């Protein structure tokens, strides 16, 4: 089992400088492409510079692109961010597609966030609007005055109706009907 994660920093999602609240500001400021003009390990980087770099610079006027040839060294990508972070990537023997993918990643990041484990997928400044839930929420205040143990409160909610209760209900219904019938008879008589 690897223990590399034991000393990994952990944190919560944050965005620098309230980014995205008014408008979105790209956080990548500078990108440096270092490569060798002869060495085979820089071949993908050279292809990328030939074919896609000008388009990339035109599409992203907010990002300064530096190209730095150096003899007999591996190709490297370095991105510098608004918050001062610097991300270094080795591109040894990678193709131009891979390099364009990594550059895209550098562009869309907010900083070198790769080494942080996120503990939550959500951040808010206002955790509750209707107030936090309590067990007394939307409950009748009668519960405050009850003396415990209370027989009625300790009953389950869905006890089936007993035969006696049913009989009582039937009796009451019958009485009601009789009462109604009596009223009707009375009214009829009055009408006559």
């Amino acid at each position, binding site marked *: 089992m690897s223990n590399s994660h034991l000393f990994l920093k952990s944190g919560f999602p944050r965005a620098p400088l309230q980014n995205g*609240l008014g408008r979105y500001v790209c956080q990548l400021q500078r990108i440096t492409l270092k490569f060798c003009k002869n060495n085979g390990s820089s071949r993908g980087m050279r292809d990328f510079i030939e074919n896609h770099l000008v388009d990339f610079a035109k599409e992203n006027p907010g990002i300064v692109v530096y190209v730095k040839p150096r003899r007999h060294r591996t190709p490297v990508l370095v991105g510098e961010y608004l918050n001062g972070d610097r991300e270094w990537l080795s591109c040894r023997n990678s193709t131009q597609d891979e390099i364009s993918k990594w550059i895209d990643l550098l562009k869309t990041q907010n900083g070198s966030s790769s080494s942080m484990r996120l503990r939550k997928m*959500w951040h808010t400044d*206002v955790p509750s*609007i209707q107030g936090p839930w309590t067990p007394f929420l939307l409950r*009748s205040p009668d519960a405050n005055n009850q003396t415990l143990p209370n027989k*009625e409160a300790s009953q389950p909610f869905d006890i089936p109706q007993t035969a006696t209760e049913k009989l009582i209900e039937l009796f009451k219904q019958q009485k009601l009907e009789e009462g109604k019938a009596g009223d009707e008879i009375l009214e009829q008589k009055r009408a006559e």
Partner: protein
Amino acid sequence: MSLLTQSMRQLLRHTTQRATLSGAMRALSLSPTLQQQNKPATIDVSAIAKEHQKECQTVCERINQQVAKSEQGRLFAVVHLCGKQFKITPGDIILVEGYWPPTIGDEISLDKVLLAGARDFTLIGRPILEAGLVTVKATIIEKTLTHTKTHFKKKRRKQYMRINFQRSPNTMIRINSIELTRPLDSNAEPEVEPSKRLF
């Protein structure tokens, strides 16, 4: 306590009546006081339905008044996004895990709103609120990769050991605004067809 239980039981019994009520009432979490009272043994269905309608209308009107005066305060919503539900309010940050096409700077509106609420009222969808009732606007602010996760497998006494490293994409979204776009209509019939914007 017993009052509550009895009313609950009666609610359960009178589900058929409740089905005749307008859709907007059920969209509101506010239960009218009528439901909590003990009813006599003989029930006039139409009268109760009318009373419900009235109650519903007054509640809707009150909410509409509050919204018109913009006294409702901060709104919150529960949205369904990429298989997960998030409780959000303007200014929040949420993260979508895994591959998701939108890129940085994109402004999107989250359409699957399951619930929207303010300090004094809550609108609950069945399962989602009608399209266009609540607009939730958001901006994509970051697309990055997670920290390197180690995927380690070993079987004892079998000479089997694998170690893989993986980083999955993550997208950070800022919620810009949650708004009630149109006044509530108490007579609105529930949608018969499901929304076409579900995907």
